[in-house]
């Protein structure tokens, strides 16, 4: 008994390990790609522009509209999380616009993890504190809506950027780039690296992140229409965690070996981590890495010729446009029915889908232009 006890207590450890093997029993089902299953609108393979249908304003309404015209504005910017380069750069844009505009003070405050509960609590705490405007990037479009509606009802102007809420929970949303446009850029750049018949895998953030799921769904549709010979091996999740992204990318490399021609990173954390995994595996030139990434994080890999291109919009411009839009909405210069918006130094931006301000086509960063960007 004295010998059996430690074993008896510990043998239970084997049960979950055995559960892993239960995975073997199931035949390989249709591969989960990470898409959101919503309808897609892939762009033409040759890039000819899509028709834009006019949509009536569908954003929310703020109480006491116009009351803030000409008044000083106190604005809080609530990104999905703070502490990553991506939102560090959007915050810079918000502050830049606030400095240019008369009588605007802006601060950035967000959860330390991409957690919707923390984000809701934070906004709830700011609502009664005497602020005039909220900028947000939602961790969950539905869950964040009630607290934003509450802000609108209290006369606080609300503008989203990067990741939207339900349209009636905010006045405007700065759309960094249309999903099908990003999808096309990513798959086209991937094809340039791995050829029209290459095999690739995706490293994304989580099951439920709305942007990533939407891009992936559009990528799938575009790839099937324009590069039917490509093989989509699998999609793995890695949250927005450096080390986990690196480990997941490394495991993909180990699993597929030479079969893996390219990895696509769907977050600004996953892409440099995948590039690092390919570098450490000594596979630069063999396994390509493409993805959404901030230029600063990709500079070492582009410089070493391990990565040819990364895709992203100008995140600082996105934060800048959001702050400009909030100021214009509070002053009545941006109103329901407008089809374009003068966003300060960015010039005139198009308004799409009722209440979305389109930032433009994504930027492709390569060795030629990456040093021009610093975020």
């Amino acid at each position, binding site marked *: *008994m*004295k*010998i059996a*006890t*430690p*074993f008896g*207590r*510990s*043998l*239970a*450890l*084997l*049960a*979950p*390990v055995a*559960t*892993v*093997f239960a*995975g*073997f029993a199931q035949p*390989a089902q249709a*591969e*989960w790609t990470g898409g959101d299953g919503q309808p897609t609108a892939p762009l033409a393979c040759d890039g000819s522009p899509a028709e834009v249908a006019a949509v009536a304003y569908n954003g929310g309404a703020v109480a006491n509209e116009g009351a803030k015209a000409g008044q000083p504005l106190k604005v809080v910017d609530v990104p999905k*999380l*703070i*502490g*990553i*380069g991506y939102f*560090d750069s959007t*915050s810079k844009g918000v502050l830049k616009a606030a400095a240019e505009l008369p009588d605007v003070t802006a601060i*950035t405050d967000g959860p*330390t*993890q991409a957690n919707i509960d923390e984000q809701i609590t934070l906004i709830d705490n700011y609502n009664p504190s005497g602020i005039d405007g909220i900028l947000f990037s939602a961790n969950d479009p539905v869950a964040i809506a009630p607290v934003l509606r509450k802000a609108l009802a209290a006369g606080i102007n609300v503008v989203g950027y990067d990741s939207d809420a339900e349209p009636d929970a905010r006045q405007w949303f700065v759309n960094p780039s249309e999903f099908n446009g990003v999808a096309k850029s990513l798959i086209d750049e991937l094809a340039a690296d791995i050829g029209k018949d290459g095999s690739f895998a995706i490293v994304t953030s989580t*099951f439920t992140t709305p942007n990533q799921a939407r891009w992936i769904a559009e990528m799938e549709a575009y790839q099937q229409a324009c590069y039917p010979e490509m093989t989509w091996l*699998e999609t793995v*999740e*890695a*949250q927005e965690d*450096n*080390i*986990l992204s*690196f*480990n*997941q990318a*490394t*495991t*993909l*490399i*180990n*699993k*597929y070996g030479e079969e893996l021609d390219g990895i696509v990173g769907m977050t600004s*954390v996953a892409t*440099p*981590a995948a590039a*690092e995994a390919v570098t*450490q*595996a000594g596979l630069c030139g063999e396994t390509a890495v493409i993805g959404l990434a901030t230029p*600063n*994080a990709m500079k*070492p890999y582009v410089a070493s010729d391990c990565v040819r291109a990364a895709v992203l919009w100008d995140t600082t411009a996105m934060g800048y446009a959001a702050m400009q839009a909030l100021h214009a909405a509070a002053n009545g210069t941006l109103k329901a029915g407008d089809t374009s918006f003068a966003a300060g130094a960015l010039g005139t931006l198009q308004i799409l889908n009722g209440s979305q301000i389109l930032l433009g086509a994504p930027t492709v960063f390569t060795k030629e232009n990456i040093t021009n960007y610093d975020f």
Partner: protein
Amino acid sequence: MTSQILPARANPPAAAPLRRFFSEYGHECVVALAILVLLVGVGLYNPRFISARNLGSIFSGNAYVAIAAIGMTILIVMRQIDLSVGALIGVLATISGSIAVSGAPIWLAWLAPVLCGMAINAVSGLLVAYAGIPAIVVTLGMMAVLQGGLISVTGGAWISNLPADFLLAKMAVFGLPMPLVWAIVLTIAAGLWLRLTPYGRSFYLIGGNAEAARAVGLPVRRRIVMAFVIHGAFAGLATLMFATQLQVIQSTTPPNLELLVITASVIGGVSILGGTGTVFGSSLAAVLFAAIGSALIFVNVSAYWQRAFIGALILLTVGADMLRRRRAASAGGK
């Protein structure tokens, strides 16, 4: 229970040391067995799982968790806990990276996280031992202070452009990845120190029965502070393997790292009630987590199951430990 009443069966003398080994390290053997079963099973399914490259990833990928779990094991053996270790590693990584990019000598960037880890944890240890505040409260507070402080000081900016000679975890010793070598050497050194020296054994005595330890003249409070300081040093060493793995350092604390470290200790056989458990077990458990994470990709199961698996492992291990203690108590043992 009958076997305890009956006289022990006669064994051939040669079997006795082996038998003693299994009775003392039975739990560690089971964790090792679980790793082996996983490697063989998934290896049969896809031989690339046990390729040298993937084994390298499994054994070195979680090395920083194993190193941090050594210190955590010592704390938990002492009936203490540290919820701030994840936040601490995040802060130490930023300190180390900032020194590295400032142009200061690299050895300073490596030494600073260890010293700062010891200093910060000394504060926690003093509050626990001398102010009598429970460790769970002190370290919960410390976690919030460290997390908030980190974001306020860095403003959320990443550290990039790290000098190449700072990246310790990318280096190799005799062809083995540095994180693996560190995890093995530190585990063995700490394991032997805890087992063979009177100082090391005093942690187990205090954790098992603080009153008795005090009665025989052990300085219980000083040892508690020491346990926190040692744990801080291991957190600093773990940071070196964590922060030098990639070319950027995130200014957020690694999500749920404290839970991973505590879980490695608990699944490795450390009783949450103090007094028992070894660092060999916690290091093996860290390897087991990495193997499970990798296996899930090889068999096409979502990474989210990893958390569920590890959660199930915690419940099973702690539950079994409680059961064992109750049985031992009702049998009049211990």
